[in-house]
């Protein structure tokens, strides 16, 4: 009898388990974290700096799409509340919906702007981050703060001290411009009076490769950062263009047209040791390296229309990756390796930015119904944001977007228009 009971006791849960059905729930909606940023108190003579730091800091965090910055009007500043966790009434911050709370103090020390940053976990009711910095400008201080807060939550290096390079076309002039990730702090690295296209950073940030018509035909030139000194890198056949450094900075992949056939080539960083990787009679162009440097994605029209292809870095195992659309171009492999961003023309003849998984070939859309042309995507070094060109406001301007496309911001307002952005490497 006892044996029977034991057997029954064992059998009943097993039977129950056998009958239970399981469902899969995936693709969550990633919800921004609610962050309250109080007004930053200023030391003597630092009022303007404090406002600048706070505004830049807020803009930086908003750009990422990870944070929902609470409207300062939704909470009333309590003058008696200091920066020590014991003086903060966290229940008040919970009531306004804040999950994180940021406080900072900004002061001036001669030519320098100093600041201390405090980040609190509202639910836990304690301070989780404290930093003190001295910087030359309020914006530099704000970018540091933003990098720290981003790093705290994502456990990855921030991107707010990186620079974006782009080409601004004027009347008979091509400017290679550098700007902060919010489009501010822009400067011209070099003004050219011949066609200058397709800039691409060296991974250490010390040089930008461009396609230049300085000697009458497209060639690869390098402009040194930050002084703009130019050096010739590659000249081959009728045309050499679209050069990109490998992730280790030792090789360059580019397109060249020799005897009228456009193919993908590689060379060493000094332009020597040129090798051809593709040989199809159709056009092969626009190489981009995988982050491990072992593969190259490129565009080929060998199927009749331009599509994204992938091959090993030595040119072997060339295979087609995209089968949708009929005009796919400008591939850029994410620094994370899991996506390749590209521009494609859809059935309504508008250009938009898409992502394709190099493993599965699955395509996702980033931009849609936002002007007639959204193109030339380039990844932030953390692979969490893209910069692209959009004509949604008239002239082409730069837009920073998250890969999901649900957070987008126009960051430039240039009368001439800006094109070919390339996101620089992480700050050392």
């Amino acid at each position, binding site marked *: 009898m006892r044996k029977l009971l034991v057997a029954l006791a064992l059998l009943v849960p097993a039977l129950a388990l056998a009958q239970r059905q*399981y*469902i899969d729930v995936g693709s969550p909606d990633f919800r*921004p974290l609610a962050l309250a940023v109080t007004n930053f108190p200023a030391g003597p003579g630092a009022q303007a700096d404090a406002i600048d730091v706070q505004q830049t800091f807020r803009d930086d965090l908003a750009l990422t799409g*990870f944070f929902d910055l609470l409207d300062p009007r939704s909470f009333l500043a309590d003058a008696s509340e200091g920066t020590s966790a014991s003086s903060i009434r966290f229940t008040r911050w919970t009531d306004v919906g804040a999950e994180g709370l940021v406080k900072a103090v900004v002061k001036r020390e001669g030519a320098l702007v100093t600041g201390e940053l405090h980040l609190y976990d509202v639910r836990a009711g304690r301070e989780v981050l404290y930093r003190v910095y001295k910087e030359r400008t309020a914006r530099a201080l704000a970018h540091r703060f933003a990098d720290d807060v981003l790093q705290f939550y*994502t456990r990855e290096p921030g991107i707010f001290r990186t620079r974006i390079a782009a080409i601004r076309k004027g009347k008979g002039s091509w400017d290679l411009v550098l700007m902060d990730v919010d489009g501010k702090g822009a400067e011209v690295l070099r003004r050219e009076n011949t066609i200058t296209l397709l800039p691409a950073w060296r991974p250490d940030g010390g040089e930008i490769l461009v396609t230049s018509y300085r000697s009458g035909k497209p060639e690869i030139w390098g402009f040194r950062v930050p002084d703009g000194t130019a050096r010739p890198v590659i000249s081959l056949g009728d045309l050499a263009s679209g050069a990109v450094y490998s992730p280790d900075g030792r090789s360059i992949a580019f397109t060249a047209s020799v005897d009228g056939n456009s193919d993908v080539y590689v060379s060493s960083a000094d332009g020597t040791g040129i090798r051809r990787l593709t040989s199809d009679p159709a056009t092969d162009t626009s190489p981009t390296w995988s982050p491990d440097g072992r593969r190259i994605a490129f565009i080929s029209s060998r199927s009749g229309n331009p599509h994204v292809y992938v091959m090993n870095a030595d040119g072997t195992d060339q295979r087609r990756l995209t089968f949708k659309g009929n005009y796919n171009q400008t591939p850029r492999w994410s620094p994370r390796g899991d996506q390749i961003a590209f521009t*494609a023309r859809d059935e309504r003849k508008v250009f938009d930015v898409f992502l394709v998984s190099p493993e599965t070939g699955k395509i996702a859309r980033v931009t849609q119904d936002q002007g007639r042309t959204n193109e030339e995507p380039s990844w932030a070094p953390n692979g969490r944001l893209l910069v692209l060109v959009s004509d949604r406001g008239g002239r082409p301007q730069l837009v920073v977007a998250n890969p999901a496309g649900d957070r*987008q911001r126009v960051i430039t307002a240039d009368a001439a228009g800006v094109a070919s952005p390339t996101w620089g490497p992480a700050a050392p």
Partner: protein
Amino acid sequence: MTGESALTRGPDRLWPLLLASVALHAGVFAAAFLARPPAVVDLDQKPIVAKLVRLGEKRPEQWLPRRDVPPPEAAPRAPDAVPIPVPGPPAPPAQKTVALPAPKVAPKPTPPRPASATTGGKGSDALSRALDKVRKDDKLASKERWGDPSGVSGGDATDASEGDRYLGLVTQALQASYRLPATISEQERAQLKATVVLTVEADGRVSTFRFEKRSGNAAFDQALERAVRESRLPPPPPELRQRYRTVGVGVNFKV
């Protein structure tokens, strides 16, 4: 009384028949119960993936995908976007460009575009052509929700798959409230997996929630509990009520 019908003498004649019927039924049920194959304990039961395909026209295979939810900002310009400073006159190619003056921070307001009110033969032709084009584009643009002619109106998938209808609705309900903090990094996301078991009452209320397998990431596990609490599951069909109240349903949450 020989002429009496069988019906009028019912009670006497029907009893044996009724008894025989009951015995026969009992025998059949007993046989069916005893002959039942032993319960198969399958611990690796494959999860059912259920999607409700939206009713609609099938989007051509070779077309690029369209988003169901368009990006929120249709065509805004950031109010604080700044112009890039202009350097001096173009320098000769071989020379270095000198450092630039500080950028002008004052944003240039965009002059309002005058409303075009073209009238007249040629102009109105061009206008009507342009309008036709816009209408055509709008027509294409409005077709944002593609589906399948055999789909259902509440469906949310574009491609078809088999699955239990109720579990499909449960999946849909949980999916709607499945939100995670955007700050969970990509590296962490790839690892995140947890299995929970829910028991569901006749009215769709979740009566118990327990982890069969935790992810190990507190923020993720907390978010799952919240997602289930905030979801509204549909009432199970009457014949399955007992099963969902006792055995429950397992949910594999992943990213």
